């Protein structure tokens, strides 16, 4: 019994060393140790949830941002003697919804913000994931143009110097990633 316990402790000790190594390497997996040990580290880490980087609000905290989109509808075919009154105007929207009045838990908002931040990091994600979803939200749409808008927070020194102005007035709007998707026709089998 004592031998079995000792063997168990020995095996557990091996796992302890391995797990600590994984927990130290994974947050910085792109570094040398991560690159050379990726084959033995990542399958385990990715299965149990150790595949995270602990970079909260870092290296720089994010500025206020959102996804702005414009939905375009097909041009109406104008036949002789008819007016073009059926043509639908483009619709502008934001994701996440601004001034959200929905009665949902705060976590829903957090999840939508997390999703938006994930999407705007790469135009491909907008094209392959966000675009098709928006097309489904607006049946009949021809295309959707999306852009990542960042409202920069003024530097602290600036905010202190111009105390009479609101932070909003001191901030600047910057457009980052832009992408347009067609809502008509099949999507390419493009990988992410």
């Amino acid at each position, binding site marked *: 019994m004592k031998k079995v316990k000792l063997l168990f*402790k020995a095996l557990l000790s091996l796992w302890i060393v391995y797990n600590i190594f994984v927990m130290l390497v994974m947050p910085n997996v792109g570094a040398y140790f991560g690159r050379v040990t990726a084959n033995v580290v990542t399958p385990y880490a990715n299965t149990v949830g150790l595949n995270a980087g602990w970079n909260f609000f870092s290296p720089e905290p994010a500025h206020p941002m959102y996804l702005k989109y414009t939905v375009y509808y097909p041009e109406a075919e104008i036949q002789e003697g008819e007016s073009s009154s059926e043509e639908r105007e483009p619709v502008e929207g934001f994701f996440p919804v601004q001034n959200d009045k929905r009665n949902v838990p705060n976590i829903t908002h957090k999840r939508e913000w997390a999703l938006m931040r994930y999407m705007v990091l790469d135009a491909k994600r907008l094209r392959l994931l966000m675009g098709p979803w928006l097309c489904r939200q607006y049946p009949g749409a021809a295309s959707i143009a999306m852009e990542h808008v960042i409202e920069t927070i003024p530097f*602290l020194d600036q905010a202190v110097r111009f105390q009479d102005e609101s932070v909003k007035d001191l901030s600047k709007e910057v457009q980052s990633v832009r992408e347009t998707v067609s809502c008509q026709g099949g999507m390419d089998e493009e990988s992410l």
Partner: protein
Amino acid sequence: MMKKLWAQWDEFWFAPQSLLGLAYMRIMLCGTLLYMNITRFYNLEFYTDSSWIPRVRALEVMPELGRPLFMWMFWPDSINFAMNLVLVVFLALLTLGIGGRWLMWITWIINAGFLQRNYAVNFGADIIGALFLFYMSFTQSCERLSLKNVLLGKTQFHQSDVLSSAMIRMMQVQISVIYAYTGWEKLKGGSWWDGTALWSVLANPQMTTMDFSFLRHFPWVIPVIGYVTILFEIYFPAMVVWHRTRYLCLLLGLSFHAGIGIFMGLMPFATVMVSTYFLFLDPQLLEAVLAKARAVLHRPKATQAA
């Protein structure tokens, strides 16, 4: 020499420990996950093909080096409601101390399945909560502070077995590594060095629950809190190991997370992180708190009887 080293290793990782701290942690962690999974009922469409991420792309959306070998989500999207209900029931049982390693294992798998199904909607509390649930699933977390003990009138409790002891230590190491990394990552940022990073957080209406722009009238507060945050995070492992600074460090952490929870609306993240603090508290202190709580609970009965 080797014998002495092994004895020290054995003592550190495998010596029996009180399971009370772990039980407090279980209540806080499982309670938080219970709340988060109840709110998931509002968002079940996030985990279906009608959302942003079709099932076939669920793993593909993760960074290449972070992709699991397989998906823990063994059920089809169509029964998400039922699976979330099962998860909520299991978490409720575990919060009450009913269940054990197997129940927590299954709970962890279902929870991990949801997290993998839509990786893009996860935030800090999901990731860290799931990680600690994984470690906790190897422990005797329901030995203390359990409804079952109350119903059965159990008054004698076991100390931790070898596996539970190792996992309690591993969770202590894990939380220390998380803090240290968050501090190191901040050092990469110019605005954290500059002392103004916290301004970008507090002046960001998307991140806060109230308007903090008044802080520009007291600008020195911002770098002070910013530097204290970095020092706290980087030195957490050292401060929590040394008994003289342990309680100061935990108190700092508590205020830090209370601030994040209240003013940034990240309460689940705060409670997940703080739940691990129970593992660093003196078991005698925890027993004393429990005894006092029992005394308060039994006082009205005694008064009634008198």
